[in-house]
């Protein structure tokens, strides 16, 4: 009888132990340390004193794709994917909209024939949303927003589930075919934290891309946003994008 009792207690102990273990896993999730901006920030850079924003003046873009080339030269962008791209819009007499982007290694638009009544270019980039869906849905917190307002991916934590890719309304994310983690525009965080411009902004010959500090009321970006009318992409989704489009046509989504 006593041996039976001992056995029963052992089983109970085991179940209690299993339950306690589960409780521990459930209630004690650890917070992993995350380096500010891929650990590339210099010591004299203060992320709390900036809030970076971006503007695109679509009336100035000439579709040269220097920005795309600069991005590829500066960052690890695999073939077939883009961290930034330029859309060409061609609208004919009947109002039909034709959109395409530059293709091939040289990143040039394919010449097209046919009557066009309106045409323009729209550079696209990660909107670094204030209420970014991608960071909301990342199950492990690998996608995150820095204190200076840049949305980044911690490649060492990303599990490559692709949920953020699905959640981004702007199609700016992708799973890197080699590293198998989410990849996207970083606003060239390694450059901007050293006082440099993002590569695409630096390369633009027409100043169609503007980068600046939304915290600084005297910044060129803030001045332009006060003077000009602008649109956001898909504002109805409540993501509060920080990429402001000047002179954007209603055809653009």
């Amino acid at each position, binding site marked *: 009888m006593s041996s*039976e009792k001992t*056995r*029963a207690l*052992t*089983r109970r102990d*085991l179940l209690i132990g*299993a339950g306690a273990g*589960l409780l521990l*896993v*459930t209630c004690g*999730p*650890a*917070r*992993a340390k995350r380096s500010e901006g891929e650990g590339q920030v210099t010591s004299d850079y203060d992320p709390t004193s900036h809030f970076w924003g971006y503007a695109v003046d679509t009336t100035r873009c000439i579709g040269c794709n220097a920005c795309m080339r600069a991005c590829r030269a500066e960052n690890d962008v695999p073939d*077939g*994917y*883009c961290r930034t*791209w330029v*859309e060409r819009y061609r609208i004919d007499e009947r109002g039909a*909209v*034709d*959109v*395409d*982007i530059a293709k091939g290694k040289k990143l040039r638009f394919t010449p097209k024939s046919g009557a066009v009544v309106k045409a323009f270019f729209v550079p*696209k980039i990660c909107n670094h949303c204030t209420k970014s*869906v991608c*960071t*909301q*849905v*990342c*199950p*492990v*917190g690998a996608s995150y927003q820095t204190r200076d307002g840049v949305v980044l991916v911690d490649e060492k*934590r*990303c*599990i*490559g*589930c*692709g*949920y953020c*890719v*699905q*959640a*981004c*309304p*702007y*199609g*700016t*994310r*992708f*799973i890197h075919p080699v*590293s*198998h*983690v989410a990849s996207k525009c970083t606003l060239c965080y390694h450059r901007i934290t050293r006082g440099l411009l993002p590569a695409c902004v630096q390369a633009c010959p027409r100043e169609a891309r503007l980068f600046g500090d939304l915290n600084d009321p005297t910044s060129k970006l803030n001045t332009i946003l006060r003077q000009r009318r602008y649109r956001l992409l898909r504002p109805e*989704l*409540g993501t509060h994008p920080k990429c402001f489009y000047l002179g954007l046509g209603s055809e653009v*989504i």
Partner: protein
Amino acid sequence: MDFVFPNEVNVTWSVMIVLYPYITGLVAGAFIVSSLYHLFGRDELEPVARFSLASAFVFLLFAPLPLLIHLGHPGRSFNIMVTPNFSSAMAGFGYIYTAYLILVVLEIWFVMRSDFIQRARTPGLAGFVARAVLLFDRHEDEATRRADHKMTRVLAGIGIPLACLLHGYVGFLFGSLKANPWWSTPLMLVIFIFSAIVSGISVLIFHYFVVSWINRWKVDQACVRSLGRYLWGFMILAVSLELLELMSIAYKQTEEWEVLSELIGHRLFFSYGVLQFLIFSLIPFILLGINALVRIRDKIANAMIWTAATMLLGQVLLMRWNVVIGGQLLSKSMRGFTSYFPGIWEKEGLVTAAVVFTLPFLILYLFHRIIPLFPTVDGRAGEQRGA
């Protein structure tokens, strides 16, 4: 209508992510059938009650496998539980899955304790496994049986909301993504729960008939007729909800409908319109309807129920395909569509998918070798072996 954002040319979520909600749906559905017997006293379901619980268990074991195959870094998958981001719906997976797995294991343990005790008396590996499962305690009397039965009812009671949570959560993963008009609907969660129940009942009917035919057993007529009626009811709910959702967005004629009508009318016309609704929903609806409303001969009724169940298994798989892949064909540019066909031998190809889907059936067979899952004709469990 031909511009796709450059990063959307390749579909991110493959056929593995089609399998994942399919398999979890089978789990939830099979569990609910077992609870109909254990909790709601539907005694006519006794012949499949143990089998349904075991089915829920083995499918649950394999539910994370397609996810692990899909993940870019499966080695980091445990981070979902260790360092979760609580604002993410996906972060709930580890907790919900683990809680449900524990519940199903415990319920199986309490339901089948007597059988394991019987099995533990036999020599060999199966006997040792049974003894290990019993934690080497083979004591049994009237009091332990009563306690086991009580625990079974409690666990079945907790299990129903948990099963709905497990699968409703999968629906929520899709339904909460506001960027995708094909997914973004609160109804997605409810549709997923009902389609899960449909697939769960279907797989039980399918499997019960196949095992009975192989072993030349006579199926329990009251049981299959009852399952057929439940299947009819749940499929009506599931299909109606899907059609209501479709009608609602079509009638509202919003901006999204322009592109969704193109998706439904052209890109998914065959897999969604023709296969999922016209063939794999309408025919089972008619077959099960006749079975439920008209008294027909057993042999014909059985053929109709089995055909309907098999087709509904296909219907739910088609539904998962049309949701998961369909939603990704549509570019967020709202101006074009990409295309997808899984490779055959690729890591996330059709062969892998077939293997992932076959494995639970093999484990179920092994389970049956240790503890027989079907009762004999006279109602006593554990007499028939060798399915």
